[in-house]
């Protein structure tokens, strides 16, 4: 068998191991574990008693805030290249970024008015 190479050896070991597992499973019969108690059957909740079913749908409250954060966070990325340009251009870059931030601020106002910032 060694002549067949290491691949065949490992394959044989795998088959033998699988056979042992199958045999013990078949010979040993079903485990006679006692029936689970009710507390054992509930989903694990870090020690707390679960109040709803494990597949219960629930509202991700931070969802809209996460979206808004993502949007404004991505806008902030523009500040980094701008900082380099600002050193060179001065006032013009300042004015441009001012316009950009103003429009962004209006977006915040809009989100506020739409009650996207409330924990609803």
């Amino acid at each position, binding site marked *: 068998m060694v002549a067949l190479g290491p691949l065949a050896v490992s394959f044989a070991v795998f088959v033998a191991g699988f056979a042992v597992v199958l045999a013990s499973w078949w010979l040993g019969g079903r485990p006679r574990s006692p029936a689970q108690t009710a507390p054992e059957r509930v989903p694990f909740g870090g020690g707390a008693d679960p109040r709803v079913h494990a597949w219960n749908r629930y509202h991700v409250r931070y969802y809209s805030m996460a979206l808004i954060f993502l949007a404004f966070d991505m806008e902030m990325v523009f500040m980094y290249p701008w900082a380099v340009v600002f050193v060179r*251009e001065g*006032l*013009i870059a300042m004015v441009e970024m001012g316009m950009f931030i103003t*429009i962004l601020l*209006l977006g915040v*106002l*809009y989100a506020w*008015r739409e009650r996207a910032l409330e924990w609803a």
Partner: protein
Amino acid sequence: MTGQATMATMVTDVLPEIVLVAGGVLVLLYALLAPRRLQGGAAVVAMLVAVAALTVALAMLPGTELVTFFGTYARDRTALWAKIIVLAATVAVIGLSAPWFRRDPRHGEYYTLLLFSSLGAILLAGATDLKELVVAMLLSSATGFVLSAYHRRSSQAAEAAIKYYLIGALANSAMLFGVALLFGLAGSTTLGGLAAGLPSDGGLALVIGVGLVVVGLAFKIGAVPAHAWVPDVAQGAPAPVAAFVTTVPKVGGFIFLARFVIALPPDAAGWQPLVAVLAAATMTLGNLACLWQDDLRRLLGWSAVSQTGYGLMAVVALGSSDLAVPALLFFLLAYVLGNLAAFGVVVELRGRTALADVAGIGERRPALTAALAISFLSFIGVPPLNGFVAKLLLFLVAIQVGYAWLAVAAAVNTVVSIFYYVRVLAPAYFGRPAGTVAVLGRPAASATFAAAAAVVVTGVAAEPFVAAFAAAGLVIR
């Protein structure tokens, strides 16, 4: 200090865009502060903004043609005419939207989205830089998705918007890969830089890069292979939005495609046969899908696809024929006006869309049915209407540059298209009316009739328009 001086002069090159940005923000502020019963006032503000931008664009027409903002933005008459068409269409769509959304308690920001979306189309028409293209595409697409889903409780609108979004995301990301490839090949993203730097023996990378960018633009203009969203959006989106999304972004997409292909090395990439095949496929597919359509809005969507195919004939001729740019501009003018009139009729009929329900409206609403007939006859290309002049120019340029087979394909398609347009018009005039035909209101009717009248006027008096378009240059550097 010279930097400041040039900056100040450059800002005057983008005045219509600035008016649109400031106006869109103004509309948003209005929508924020106005109580629910006054939300409709946002339509008035938006209308004033669009008219102001239109006036500025008209006033800029006599100016010199140049590329501004360091080679990234064209201020030529082609871009200006595109802006004028886009803004006129936006004015009409605002007229259609005001009565349609009257019952929506919070629709002020709808007009902000509309203005920003037309800004996206305008930026596309002026862009001479691939990065500018990406930004403009994003602005135009993202607003379009939201507009299509504006009836957020309608499952049809949601379906239309999600299809629009998915196809758009796919096409736009394909375009990003194309932009990256072309940037790598030419070492520049401006179209002037591409024209100078693209190697004519770019090989596979050039072909793939060009193909991917064309796929992105095909999405915008509703051409094969990214056309599938058009019928769904036409059917499912709010009818005024359908009128907007099937016309306005197309203008920008067509103009950028035109700029893009003339920047390519003439013998490389084989863009001419590529666009010709796309044109033939688009018009044929759109026509075949129209044939047994039982839904007027869906039919209009597929007919918009087939019209795109005709328009692509002008793009094929770019660079080889002097008539290509006027043909493209006149086609866009004719198509936008015709489509606005047709969708305007749908809006004014309160979204009535099944062909069975259209039967007999000629008796009850003669003027509206006449508007529908005018727009359909213009789509076919019947002589006094502007569609005839557009098709004449398109066939002419296709034959001029040696694509006679394309002209023949277009002619065959035109003959086929008579069938499905008549399939709507015949019952409308000769069918028996069932019940009363409710209409929406005066602003929508005015916009519809104005568009239909413009179809006739620009058809009868086509010559000054063609002459004006012939004086329009397409600069890329």
